[in-house]
């Protein structure tokens, strides 16, 4: 490559990179403050806010609820998205663009509009039952599935675009049934796409707050909803402690992935 970025470009990019990491690093010292309010530890460092995460059962409940809702909604969304993408890929219907548009609607609509829409949906359901309703875990899982299904559709459709149609045609020509083609020909070639769809949809449900805020109040308090409550009025430094843990997990995963890719590249050379 002849035109490497010059020193000025590198400086500007470095400033942006620091800007990107700054707030993530900032929460670390704040989480060790001995005070009850948002502040820097002044000489004395304390673990009381980490202790609070263990002592206050609300955090464990929120964690469990978020994991449960994430698993249910990611499975439902990926299942629906997989079937849909397979159907579109096999049939290639005339109105594929329109169908795709409907499937992706919750992803492109403004999040707050989706939130109000799902609020309307769940309070309407609440008139008929107590299970799938406003402020229940099942209601949240259903609403999350709506919001994350488009991402599953996108990832699986991209994976399907790489599949060679002629292999499927060959299988079909040799008399394989549709179920057999899907199970033995198509699914094996897109399994990475399906797995990444599961992972992405779980993470999206795990962090979802915009819609969750509209459809929960006191019972179905997911982890992000709990953090929101601690952020709004008096800022609770326990949020810093939980943030440090979450940042640590994400940073570790990405670091491992980067190192893994680097060693793989080095071996390939």
């Amino acid at each position: 490559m002849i035109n490497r970025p010059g020193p000025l470009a590198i400086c500007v990019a470095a400033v942006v990179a620091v800007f990107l990491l700054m707030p993530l690093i900032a929460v670390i010292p704040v989480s060790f403050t001995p005070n009850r309010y948002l502040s820097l530890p002044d000489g004395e460092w304390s673990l009381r806010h980490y202790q609070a995460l263990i002592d206050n059962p609300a955090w464990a409940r929120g964690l469990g609820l978020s994991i449960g809702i994430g698993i249910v909604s990611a499975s439902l969304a990926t299942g629906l998205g997989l079937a849909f993408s397979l159907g579109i890929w096999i049939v290639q219907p005339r109105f594929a663009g329109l169908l795709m548009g409907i499937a992706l609607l919750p992803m492109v609509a403004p999040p707050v509009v989706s939130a109000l829409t799902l609020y309307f949906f769940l309070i309407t359901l609440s008139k008929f039952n107590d299970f799938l309703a406003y402020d229940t875990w099942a209601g949240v899982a259903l609403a999350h599935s709506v919001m994350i299904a488009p991402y599953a559709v996108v990832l699986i459709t991209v994976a399907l675009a790489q599949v060679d149609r002629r292999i499927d045609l060959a299988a079909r020509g040799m008399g394989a049934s549709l179920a057999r083609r899907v199970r033995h020909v198509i699914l094996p070639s897109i399994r990475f796409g399906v797995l990444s769809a599961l992972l992405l949809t779980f993470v999206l449900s795990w962090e979802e707050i915009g819609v969750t805020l509209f459809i929960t109040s006191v019972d179905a308090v997911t982890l992000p909803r709990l953090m929101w409550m601690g952020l709004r009025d008096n800022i609770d430094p326990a949020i810093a402690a939980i943030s440090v843990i979450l940042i640590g997990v994400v940073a570790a995963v990405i670091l491992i992935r980067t190192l893994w890719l680097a060693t793989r590249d080095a071996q390939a050379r």
Partner: protein
Amino acid sequence: MPSLSRPTLLIVPLMGFMVLTYVVPFLGVAAWSVTLPEPGLGQYQAALTDPLVLSVFLRTFRVCLVVTVITVGASYMVTLLWVRGTRMQRVLIEMCILIPFWISVLTRAFGWLALLSTKGILNTWAQNLGFLAEPLTMVRNEFGVVVGMVHFLIPFAAFPLASAMRAVDERALLAARGMGAGRTRVFAQVFVPMTAPGILGAGLVVFVFALGFFVTPAILGGGRSVMAAELIYLRIFQSPNWGLGAAISVILMVTVGGLLAVMMRRARPAAPR
């Protein structure tokens, strides 16, 4: 499996699901906007004439525009290094983009609170070092909202920009250099124009995202500089006027739909109709 005997049936579940959980409820919200508290277009008239609502729309538009320009500019510079830097630079920048991208919007907004609030890190440092006598107010105003939104949106602009930069033909740059253009000139007159569609695409994505933004402005704006999305929340949950909230939602949806239609048309100008 009999249900798999007709592949068309695979499409049905998700379509049914989306129509039932999204399309029909959205029509319900639209119905609220023309029936609450009384039938008619009164809420739309109110939304487009009430000075409070208008000022919120104006602020939303202004903030989104500022955020879009800063985000795309910053992303462009950082993506440049991500795509065209040395190996080490590429790895470092990639981590700086991906780590924030995977971290929840709440954690990131909280990080900015920790940095910018009156008892936050920047104010504490500046006061200890004697730069400031009084703490600077950097959150619960538009400044904080812009900083938080730019931070959230940079990765979303970086992805389309990266794919535009990767598509640039190296030989065009080489030719420009060979004909005597300096580095700055090659960048400004060859490289930037070649990535212009990517810049436009990134700008539209960021603007559309910013319009419906709710969490970051609510936390960093602290209820002072309310934007359209937060106004909807307030009208539904705090000082209820469901009809108005629904009307603003419909207006937002139509705006975003229009912008997306423009984007699609630009992306495929020669698509057969």
